[in-house]
């Protein structure tokens, strides 16, 4: 009696002999469509044409290693040149001399990090780039402080001159012509001629101070670090045409500064009239 293992081996050999005669696909489709209405037309791998060169059982690595790789070689320098606008091409990276290219030099300096010729300077720890950045930050802080200083001086002058104008009229006009009130009857009193001089002097003061402020502001460099300007600069990276509008926007911001200047002074006038409106 053959054992079970022997039986399985005999059956496997018999099946392989049957498959070798062909008709493997028919047998596969018969099995697949058994017990269902599915009509398949699968093709067995045994019926597929085999490639001429079979995989060798042992692979000769030396032949593979000696074969040249057929992949096309990418020119990284050329790609970088095209990406960075061609500035590098004239520099030298494309000429095979990375040391003479400023961009490559900068990148190499940054990558060298703590080396004596890298990020750190040759005199023990002072980095020219970081020193320059620190200087720029200090300059921005200094300019901001100067702007605030100019604004503060003008604020003092504005407040003093407007208060002087107001107090002068308040003291010299003794009737109701300069007396605001919560009672609407004040609107029915005809004005005296001297009342209008208050606004005339106010306008004259504003004109002089605005002109002086604009002149003084020109001497103090602005940092152009407003959120709006930063936003435009960022947007200009995607839409370069926006860069054209930046000077116009800067002018509008400058005008707005002057407009708030005048509006604040007008606010002071309203406040002063409001504070003396308790008089009946």
């Amino acid at each position: 009696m053959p054992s079970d293992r022997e039986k399985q081996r005999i059956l496997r050999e018999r099946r392989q002999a049957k498959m070798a005669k062909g008709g493997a696909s028919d047998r596969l489709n018969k099995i697949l469509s058994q017990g269902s209405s599915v009509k398949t037309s699968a093709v067995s791998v045994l019926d597929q044409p085999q490639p001429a060169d079979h995989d060798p059982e042992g692979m000769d690595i030396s032949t593979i290693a000696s074969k040249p790789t057929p992949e096309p070689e990418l020119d990284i320098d050329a790609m970088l040149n095209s990406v960075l606008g061609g500035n590098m091409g004239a520099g030298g990276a494309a000429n095979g001399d990375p040391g003479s290219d400023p961009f490559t030099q900068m990148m190499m300096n940054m990558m060298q990090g703590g080396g004596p010729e890298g990020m750190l300077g040759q005199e023990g720890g002072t980095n020219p780039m970081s020193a320059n950045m620190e200087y720029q930050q200090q300059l921005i802080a200094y300019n901001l402080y100067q702007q605030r200083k100019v604004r503060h001086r003008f604020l003092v002058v504005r407040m003093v001159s407007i208060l002087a104008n107001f107090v002068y009229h308040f003291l010299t006009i003794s009737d109701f012509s300069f007396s605001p009130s919560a009672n609407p009857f004040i609107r029915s009193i005809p004005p005296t001629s001297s009342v209008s001089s208050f606004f005339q002097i106010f306008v004259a003061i504003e004109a002089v101070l605005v002109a002086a402020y604009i002149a003084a502001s020109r001497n103090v460099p602005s940092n152009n670090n407003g959120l709006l300007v930063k936003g435009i600069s960022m947007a200009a990276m995607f839409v370069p045409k926006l860069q054209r509008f930046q000077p116009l926007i800067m002018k509008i911001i400058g005008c707005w500064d002057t407009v708030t200047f005048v509006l604040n002074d007008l606010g002071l006038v309203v406040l002063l009239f409001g504070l003396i409106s308790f008089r009946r």
Partner: protein
Amino acid sequence: MEPYTLLLFIFVIQIVKQIISAVGKQSIESISWVLYCRVAPKFGHSKLASMSQKSSQLRTVAGERRAVSAQDQYAKWTKLNRQHDKLVAEIEQLQKEVDLDKVKVNTFTGYLIAILTSIPIWFFRVWYRSVVLFYFPPGILPRALEWSIALPFTVTGGVSLTVWMMAAGAVASSLTFLFMFPFEKAVPKPVLAKKSPQQL
């Protein structure tokens, strides 16, 4: 409410708002916490009272321990050291519990600031929006300016709460800047470090 009272009230609120903005919310919170720590034990806050008592005990024990030599009077020093460690642990435990109170005090301070500054302004802005606070005498301002100041709800020549709030806010802001700027630290002009011959 009388127009003049309303007018003054809004002006004071705007001044307070500017002062709070200038001082900073965090500074006000820390000041209120210090005040709370001083006042609350007097009104029976057990944890803070216990903490201050234990802190004074700790100071006494630490002083005694420093006065005793660990080599000459080892037993006494060990006893004081045990007391010291026990008090430190108790104070740390109390500190954790008191920190919860600090969060509550900070929240309360935030609500108080909002109640004092923002809520009255919004309430008055809605409730008294059409009230005329005062009228300008005719002839002082040009008619067009009087008309624009009267916007949006008032008759020409009158000043409404909206315009008054804007004016008070602008003046309060200017006054704060006027008085605070001289106390700011001056920024000196920076000097770019000269390059060494090696760098050149």
